[in-house]
């Protein structure tokens, strides 16, 4: 029993107050757990490699579907028939900081490149590991998306660079991936690296190099952007906006559904229910694309058919018109279409290649770049490439 009567009140009060700093100052009281996130530093070990590799894939897939969607609006693949202002403006050919998938693609590129850097710090054998090859391939394809679709591209907070410079970066990533995948003995990754580099080289005008890389790809090859019903950001973006039962926000473009060639081409599936079937804007005719019907439908990033068309284009540029015609016919045959019946001139073949690419690569994020490359008159008076985002402009002093 404590006898407090001998303790003056003032001292008891003082004792009370001594508790205060004790509590306020005690370490740990303010520490709380965050069980829902991973702290940055916890990723810098080998246990984080698988998650970072998969993360690079997930971020790329999200960026790919978004880019395919936006690009379809600015090109002649789709027409906006809904209510979202930024999509509407893009479909009208107006490009602003609010249009395009810059943030998704730019971040996906950084994530893949950051993973390469981390893997080299974490693993001594990084340059012979499949994971490093995988993220290098995602870095390369992200760079292709940037170069194909954006007017000027900053990397890592640097100055804006030309698409050509970005294609060179992509070529470098694919070459690196090729070496690592070869060292790791990963045949499928080797093919992806060749396929990516073939495209980069074609865009850089290195036709011999493009042809040589594309020839490495056997029939049946496909590299896909993988999508799922959940989580939402891994959805294929098209069904939610362009399948009539879900939402009639984005229609197939009249340039597609009014063109008899596309009407008979199984690679460009759509349903035209007539003029009275309108989009959610209440006015515009809505024609439903039937290529992607489920949010979990995967999308082709690269395929053997694309490689044959790269070879064909390179062949035309290298003067080998007969080879080009044969390659076109192979791709058409595979689609169940009759062989090319037009003249075997450079111009006619290039026009046919442009059509074959439009059909083969429908809603696969390449149309805008192709329209620019083939000087499509549709682009006159319209934006021909996307701007970087407001966030990049605000935060990157090198592009402000």
């Amino acid at each position, binding site marked *: 029993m404590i006898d407090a009567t001998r303790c003056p009140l003032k001292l008891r009060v*003082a004792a009370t107050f001594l508790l205060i700093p*004790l509590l306020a100052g005690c370490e740990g009281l303010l520490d709380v757990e965050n069980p829902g*996130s991973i702290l940055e530093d916890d990723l810098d070990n080998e246990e984080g490699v698988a998650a970072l590799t998969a993360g690079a894939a997930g971020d790329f897939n999200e960026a790919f579907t978004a880019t395919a969607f936006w690009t379809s609006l600015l090109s002649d693949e789709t027409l906006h028939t809904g209510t979202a202002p930024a999509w*509407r403006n893009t479909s009208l050919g107006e490009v602003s900081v609010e249009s395009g998938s810059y943030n998704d693609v730019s971040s996906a590129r950084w994530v893949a490149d950051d993973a390469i850097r981390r893997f080299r710090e974490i693993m001594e054998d990084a340059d012979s590991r499949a994971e490093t090859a995988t993220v290098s391939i995602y870095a390369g394809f992200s760079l292709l998306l940037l170069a194909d679709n954006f007017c000027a591209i900053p990397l890592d907070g640097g100055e804006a660079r030309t698409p050509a410079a970005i294609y060179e970066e992509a070529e470098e990533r694919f070459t690196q991936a090729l070496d690592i995948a070869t060292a790791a003995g990963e045949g499928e990754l080797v093919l992806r690296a060749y396929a990516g580099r073939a495209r980069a080289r074609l865009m850089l005008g290195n036709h011999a190099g493009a042809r040589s890389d594309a020839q490495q790809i056997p029939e049946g090859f496909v590299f896909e952007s993988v999508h799922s019903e959940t989580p939402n950001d891994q959805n294929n973006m098209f069904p939610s906006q362009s399948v009539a039962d879900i939402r009639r926000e984005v229609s197939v473009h009249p340039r597609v559904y009014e063109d008899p060639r596309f009407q008979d081409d199984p690679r460009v599936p759509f349903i035209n229910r007539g003029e009275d079937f309108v989009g959610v804007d209440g006015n515009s005719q809505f024609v439903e694309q039937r290529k992607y019907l489920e949010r979990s439908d995967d999308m082709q990033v690269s395929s053997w058919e694309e490689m044959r068309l790269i070879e064909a284009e390179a062949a035309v540029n290298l003067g080998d018109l007969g080879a080009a015609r044969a390659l076109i016919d192979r791709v058409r045959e595979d689609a169940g279409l009759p062989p090319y019946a037009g003249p075997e001139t450079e111009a006619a073949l290039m026009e046919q290649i442009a059509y074959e690419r439009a059909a083969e690569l429908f809603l696969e994020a390449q149309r805008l770049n192709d329209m620019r490359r083939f000087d499509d008159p549709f682009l006159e008076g319209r934006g021909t490439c996307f701007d970087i985002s407001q966030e990049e402009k605000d935060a990157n002093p090198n592009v402000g």
Partner: protein
Amino acid sequence: MEASCQDVIERVLRRGWRALRPLVRRGSLAVVGAALASAAAALLLIPSPDLKAQATGTIQGTVTDGATMRPVSGAQVFVADTDLGTLTGEDGRYVLDGVPAGSVVVRIRMMGYSGAREEVVVQAGGTTNVDFTLSQSAINLDEIVVTGRGVGTERRSLGNSLGSIDADEVVRTGAVTDFQDLVQARSPGVQVLPSSGTVGASGVIRVRGISTLSQNEMPLVYVDGVRVDVSSEGGPNVSGQSPSRMMDLIPSDIERVEIIRGAAAATLYGSEASSGVIQIFTKSGRAGEPRWSLQVEQGLERVPANFPGKLYDNFVGPTGVRARDTNELIETGHQQSYSLSLRGGEGSLTYYLSGSYRDEEGSVVPVANYLKQGSARMNLSADPYESLSLRVNMGYVNTSLRLPNNDNSVFGVSGNATAGVPYQATEERRWGENFLPVSEALRIENMQDVERFTGGITVEHDPSDLFRQHLTVGLDVVSQEDTEFFPYGFEGPFYPTGRKENSRRSRNEATVDYRAVVSNELSDRISSSFAAGLQGVFTNTSTASVEGRDFPGPGLSLASAGAVITGDETRVEEVNAGFFLEETLGLDDRLFLTGALRVDGNSAFGNNFRHQTYPKASLAYNISDEEFWPSSFWPTMKLRLAYGTSGLAPAQFAADRTWEPISVLGGVPAVTPENLGNPDLTAERSREIEAGFDAGLLDSRLGLVFTYYRQKTTDALLGVPSPPSLGFTGSQLTNIGEVRNSGFELEVNNLWLSGENVEWRSDLGLSVQETEIADLGEAGAFEHGFGSSARAVEGFPVYGKWLPGELEWDSQERTHSLSGDPIYVGPSMPTHRGSLSNTLTLFGRVTIFGLADWATGHYVANVTRQFQTQGRTGDAYLRLVEAPSGDRTPAGDSLVNYVNTMGNASFISEGDFLKLRELSLSYDVPAPWLRSLPLESMSLQVSGRNLLTATGYDGVDPEVNWSGADEFVGAEFYTVPPARRFSLSIRTTF
């Protein structure tokens, strides 16, 4: 063995440390509560010398209103300079036992009355009768207030402004169904911004404008000293009107509300308080016979027919079907409420028990929008020892709410009708619904079911006149279930084979508040009151949700029946803890100087910034107590000056650089950049200076309370964009901004007449508030809230409305275009507000109450009209086209072109309004008429709310806010206007 004083201190500290040690290791909530309770218990266990053992007697009597001669219930009766006190019962009677024999001063305090005092000589063992007659007063500086002070104190010593609402009176005379109604237009500087007429949709409360650009702008709310949840977290996703937990506060259980308006007074609440503090005091028991009160209310509610689809019935669809006016959707919602309470007490043990039930239907449309709410409360207080009093407050609320999808939703009920294109009407879509037929929208079931318990125990220990200590430990527990259900066969977008989402939110918030006070006289003229305390608020919020899509057939309504099932879980723990020291020096009981310091830590602060320190100082000068003051015609005058600081902490985990776990490639675990983090993150810091006066004139029949304030918030948290090319696409929360607020508040309370037959009282409130963003740092200008056209721009008000540029019209092409920079239009929130209420009581039986309020200086964006026009519908467009076909005209096309050019800013207009907010007529049935009934009293009331609106705004209503309780954006977007309500109620006591 006797212990020395040092031993006592040592043992006290050891006990405290033993209790705290596990807490240090684990920091868990329960342990923290237990530790603090132990610490206080250790102190309480120290027996005190009984300074009070002496001969005593009893004082009893009645307190009566001098004008009406009716008993005054609930008046505080206490013996000056002791802790002896009680409240008068319903009959105005009081009994004070244990009064020391000899000469003592008995004092009375009651809201709305002048205080009274009388010197009484108490005989040992005897009973002395003392009756008091009080006179009504428009101002009362004897009122005890507690919010924002270390210790309960009389208003006369308060150097800052403090709003208070006599909730009991408001509920009795006004037209109030929820807490929002209770606060609206009652206290200058406190803006209630309602959102819509959807039942269950909450508004927001903003005190002295907005001082933060990124954090929670809602004031902190305490109930009987315990912090409670008033957020709008969770809730079924209806894309617009959202419910907030403010709706769980039951007005009929509330006695009084105190409101801290700014940083000058909020200092002691530390790092979460700069948006203001609201403290609610629930009703307590009163000594006397048990007294039952029963109230039954029946009412109707109906939103005004303002939907912009009045022309729809001029049009016919392609098959000749005539469209319907959108306003035909409106029905009459039925309201009913019942409450029963029991109040009484014996000696020092008093109780208040209550139960209530409310059932309210929305008028758009009742089947899809209703609220059912039951509540129970038990408040007990007892003085087991002369020096120890205990109070237990417990409240339980069960709320069930059904909400239609609304506002910015393709699934909305009124939205689909209003957005309908009438010249496309069919038999199935009579409004020409573009997205979803109204009949299908009504099949979507969104429910919120909430169970909530808020309870606390307060221990007050008065071992001597010098020293007092006080401990409140309380818990607020919210258990919330939110569901969204689309049945199989749903004939609309996205979910043709059905969908069910069930989200559970569980939130526990524990409050521990310990205070100790030493009061003494330093000299004949100088008094001192030193208070110190420590407070901790520990919050755990967890959510778990499951979503199932694609049912195999009809009749299924569980998420587990879906073919695609996903789940989500979150868990957030937050801790805010700190201590304060406060000293008040009084000179001659008229000049009071207060200084205080609060030191605060918050778990959301970055690693480089763990604590914040907030000082305050204030001066109160009761100049009317000076001899030179002409107190005969100006009896009360207090001058006030206060300076203080408070903070607003960032969201938990904002400081950490994190990666988010995600599922990719159809089920492979992965990570993606989440939050850039900022180790230097700390609280926003608001500094405020306020000056004013409290004056009573004309025999205290005219009260004036004036306050001018100037507030500066530095370190305002803003998201500084991070370049996406560096991976993290979000922004980095950084303490870089500065916001300035200033304005004044004026209350004028006038008792025109207070006679036995006629009483007439008027209360006027005026406020002016201006905000300005002084600095946005690297964050730069940014837009706020979808559809609001509001931007944050340096040198302009917080979230003013902006046009995108200069509009040009090409008469040849008949097209509009924009040029130049954005153009400022005006603020989104009212800059000037006022309210005027009048209460007229005739013959003590008939009371007529009216409340009008107004707001000016702000602008509202009509996004409904913009989207309607873009979809070539709505009255504004249809007026310009051919009827009944809807064929286009050049004028209609120009309007569409205008809207496509201007976007959300197409229709911004002044939101000034004047509303007849409340009107009621009450009649107290004469007692003789009740003789045949077992009733003591009965009153009947007819009341109405939102009866008339005068405004130049041409949307559905200038007070709408499409995003409900989530944030104030000052825009309507297919929003339902606030409803008019009429009700008839009967109140009885027995």
